[in-house]
């Protein structure tokens, strides 16, 4: 049986798709057969961040409507053969998704895949509701910023009441906090909520902290999931997070200001 993970947030622009691409690639690179589904019907972007936008022929809605088979629509990643992408439809609207249709596809994928990542659209409408409905685990992507924290809390309420697990009185969805766009220097100055602040407000299990990093934009510019940029702090933070999700013990990195003396600076500039 597959484990179904929803990447969600409520608020837009916090890094859901970046996270979906990175986590899916990370799990696949660890040898787990992983499918990642774009639920943002009408505004697909996961294909762009993964770099397979020119290989999209059929999409999620085509498969739901029986216009294409799942195997025809799934795109196998060229860098990692354990990773498959199911793109969203760009021409339909969100009503093209149905609970039954999504359930059927997730059921089919579950037979073959170890992990299924559902990249949720922003908001709390149909697409977002269906992305989280079948989930076993939820990665709640949050920025250390008031509107994002509030929306995440709202999302937690929906996860707890409107999912399949909630409706069938099953064990609840496991919720994980993923704090992204974190700037230790601004936290130090008292200008940004700290990891501890956000954790205290949301009381969620912290899976990882992704620092604000230029490498994220560079990665999406070139269609390479940032986790493949192994030199970047964001790439390493995502790798840590995936390892933690798989049960490895990895200390948090990139949450404190680096203490650099003159020697350290010299050494670093040479490195």
């Amino acid at each position, binding site marked *: 049986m597959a484990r179904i993970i929803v990447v969600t947030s409520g608020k837009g622009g916090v890094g859901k798709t970046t996270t979906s691409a990175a986590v899916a690639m990370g799990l696949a690179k660890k040898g787990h057969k992983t499918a990642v589904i774009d639920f943002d019907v009408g505004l697909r972007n996961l294909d762009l961040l993964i770099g397979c936008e020119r290989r999209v022929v059929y999409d999620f809605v085509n498969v739901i409507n029986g216009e294409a088979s799942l195997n025809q629509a799934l795109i196998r990643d060229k860098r990692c053969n354990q990773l498959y992408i199911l793109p969203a439809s760009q021409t339909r609207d969100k009503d093209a998704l149905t609970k039954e249709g999504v359930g059927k596809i997730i059921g089919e994928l579950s037979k073959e895949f170890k992990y299924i990542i559902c990249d949720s659209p922003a908001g709390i409408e149909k697409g977002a509701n269906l992305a989280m409905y079948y989930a076993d685990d939820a990665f709640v992507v949050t920025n250390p910023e008031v509107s994002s924290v*509030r929306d995440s809390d709202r999302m937690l309420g929906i996860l707890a009441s409107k999912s399949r697990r909630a409706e069938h009185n099953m064990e609840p969805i496991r919720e994980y906090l993923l704090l992204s766009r974190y700037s230790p220097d601004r936290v130090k100055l008292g200008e940004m909520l700290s990891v501890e602040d956000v954790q205290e407000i949301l009381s969620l299990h912290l899976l990882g902290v992704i620092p604000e990093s230029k490498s994220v934009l560079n990665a999406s510019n070139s269609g390479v999931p940032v986790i493949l940029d192994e030199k970047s702090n964001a790439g390493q933070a995502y790798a840590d997070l995936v390892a933690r999700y798989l049960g490895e013990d990895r200390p948090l990195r990139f949450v404190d200001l680096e203490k650099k003396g003159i020697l350290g600076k010299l050494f670093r500039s040479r490195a």
Partner: protein
Amino acid sequence: MSLLDYFRSTKQSSASVAKERLQILVAHERAVRNQPSYLPALQKELLKVIQKYVQVDDDAISINFEQDDQQETLELNIILPEEQAKNH
């Protein structure tokens, strides 16, 4: 504000302001979320009944639902207008 005040003022950091605001807001929203779903309808109907007898504003009634491990409390507050209350 004098220059001295400017240096003396221990301004709260914006992050701690954000945290306080969020703590209050989130606590409130969670409380509302856990309320029984019939509360808004109950409030509306009660208001209608009361307005049959007393001239009160639409916001003169407030319903508060609290829950702890032991019990659930439904608190109903109606503010009657002063003069009318005397007449009755």
